[in-house]
Each structure stands twice: as C-alpha cells, then as structure tokens.
C-alpha cells in the first residue's frame, strides 16, 4: 500500500473479481496475502449480489444500485496451520487449498501465483506466465 489512507476490509468478493477479469481479460490470477486468513475458523466468499430479491451476477453500473445490493455468501472452513513457509499448493493445508480452488472457480481464471508473506521467496508459482521461459 502506498497512499497509507484508511481502508475498509471485507471478505473476498468474486463479483468484483469476475467483473475485473472480464473487462481486463485476465489469463491468470496472482493471489496475495493468503497468510492473513490463517486462524479464521470460517471463511466467507461473496459469490453473488442480491438486488431487489434477485441474484445478479454482474457488477452494477451505478452507486445507487450498488448500495441496494446485498452480498450472498458461501462459507468455507478455515485453517490454523502456519502457511508462511509453503512453497507449493501441496504444502498448504487442505482447507487453504480448497479456498484457492474455489476462488479460481468463481472467477473462472487459473492461479499463476499465491503469496504467503511479503518477501519475494514467499510468492509461489503455480503456473508459468512468460511464454519464452
């Protein structure tokens, strides 16, 4: 973070991610800060919004509609284990692996990397992104 202005924190919002993946043509996701979720018993992912009682899949164009939206959540079991030294998906607890898998499914984009801490060594490659090497 660069501007150091106050932030509001929420659960992973797959409606936002599907929108940005679509308008930007994501071929891969680089998922950061997985370690921050360690120790939370039940994790939630926002899978859709509800507007006027109906589930919508797209991201509203107006702030008026956005303010009327309600988040629809799915719950996943969390993990307790320290994951900051994980190098591969296999090193992660099953619940962390499932969390990543579900995000990738909901966004319809495969993971390129997942990070378990701020250091360069804590970013792990799942899939190559450079075609040359």
């Amino acid at each position, binding site marked *: *973070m*660069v*501007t150091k*202005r*106050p*932030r*509001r*924190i*929420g*659960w*992973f*919002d797959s*409606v*936002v*991610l599907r*929108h*940005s*993946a679509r*308008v*930007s*043509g*994501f*071929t*891969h*996701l*680089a*998922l*950061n*800060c*997985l370690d*921050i*979720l360690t120790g939370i018993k039940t994790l939630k992912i*926002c899978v859709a*919004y509800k507007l006027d009682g109906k589930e919508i899949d797209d991201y509203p*164009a107006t*702030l008026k509609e*956005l*303010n009327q*939206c*309600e*988040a629809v*959540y799915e719950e996943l079991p969390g993990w307790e284990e320290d994951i900051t030294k994980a190098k591969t998906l296999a090193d992660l607890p099953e619940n962390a692996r499932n*969390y990543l898998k579900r*995000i990738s499914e909901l966004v319809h*984009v495969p993971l*390129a*990397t997942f*990070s378990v801490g*701020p250091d*360069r060594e804590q*970013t792990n490659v799942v899939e190559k*992104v*450079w*075609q*040359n*090497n």
Partner: protein
Amino acid sequence: MSSIVVVGSQWGDEGKGKITDFFGQDADITARYQGGDNAGHTIVLNGKSYHLQLIPSGIFDQEKYSVIGNGVVVNPKSLINEIDQLKKDGISTDNLRISNRAHVIMPYHILLDGLQEKKKDAKIGTTNKGIGPAYMDKYERIGIRIADLIDKETFEEKLRSALEVKNELLTKIYDVAPLNFDTIFNEYNAYADRIRPYVIDASYLINNALDEHKNVLFEGAQGVMLDVDHGTYPFVTSSNPSASGAAVGTGIGPNRIDNVIGVCKAYTSRLVKVPSQPS
C-alpha cells in the same frame, strides 16, 4: 516475443509491486502505461528500501529498460527527484526511457486539483498531484507533451496559450492569484534539460523488443475497479488501469499482449472515503 500485463484487480492495494517485482525478474523491459506519481511501490534492495512513484522497478537492473509510456502523465519535478535519489545511492538511470508523447503535469494542474475537489459535493479522494487535471487537458487538446516541453520554442508557445486559459479560470472562477509565466517557463526549462537524454519514441523501442523475442512487462498502476471506464465511477482514477490501457498507453497493438495477470488479495479492502461495497 512474450509480454504480460500485471494489473490490480480490486482497488489498487493488492500488492502489485511485489508481483511486478517477482515477474520482472524475467522481463527485459518494464513499462508503465497510465497514471502518474499518484502510484508507486517500495522495493527493498540490499537492505535499503526505495520508494518509486513514477519510475518502473526495472530501473535497478542495468540490463533492462525501464519505460514511462505515452499514457502516463509525468510530473518532471517528481521524476527528477527520483532520478537524483537513485543516483545518490549509486544506481544508474541510463536505462530509463520516457515517451515523447507522454503528457506533462504543470503547476496549474496541481493547483486546480485541490480547488476542483474542494468544490465537489462528493469528494472523489484525489491525491492532489494534478493527475486528473493533466488528463483533462490532454483530452481538451491543450496539454503539453514531453516532446513539446523539450523544444523551447514549442513549449513557450503552448505554455503561453494554456496559461492564459488557466489564469482566467484561477482568477474568475476560483478567486485565487494567477500564476506567473516566467516562473513556470524557467522552472520547466531546467527540467527539460535534465529529462531530454531519456526521451524517445517508446512505442518504437517496445515493438522492436517484442520483434526480437524479448520479454516485456506492462505495469498497471491503481486497479481495474479504479478504471475511469470500468470502475466504480466517479470514485475512480482518471486513466485506464485495465489491461487494454497497456496497448494504447505504450503504443503496441492489443494482439501483442500474451497474458494478463490480475493481482488480488485473498480478501477485499478499499479506501474508507468511498461508498461501501455490499460485502
């Protein structure tokens, strides 16, 4: 050739710097394509931390080019400060290249940024760096580009006519003192002399590198949800962080982008000052 765009998928604090640095290890060119010194990242190198707001992170490797594309708006004062800071630490900036078509942030842009925000009922949370007003001038066709700045005659002519419009705005609408032509002209001429050695047609450089099968990384600032077209308008930035912005903002065809990496956090965070998300 191989090229990737690294872009934030949320509201710009996803840790793009880290991912850019990570994939940048294999890049021959790192290029910025939008935004200005309202972005930035911290890089830790040999125990010392560097905070760059404008210069892409490729600067630390002399084998690589670090490019500021035409879609970026450049505050020359910030740019020179960054160059000086790097040089002081013994880091060469010989591999820096600046597009001759990038627009220049002028003192009246910075002044107007604050004045315009004050007048708005719903504050958009500007960083007060003159970025939005510089883009306004670009689209109003009264902007000053790097190529104009480094040609003294052209600069004098363009500054004179732009300043006439801006001073009218400052005095008649915002009721503040006008800006002095000579002060700006002299200050910016000195900047021009410092910047000139780095200025090129960046599109040419990048396309040639792709032809030679080099790796090019396009580095997006802010995030897709702050894109002026696709974000949570009007609480957005004044440019296109979305991956398509990389094509226009550096002068390559969209068919030259191989992969687009959306950087995200495992959760959501955004500035408190803007309207809430359902989640």
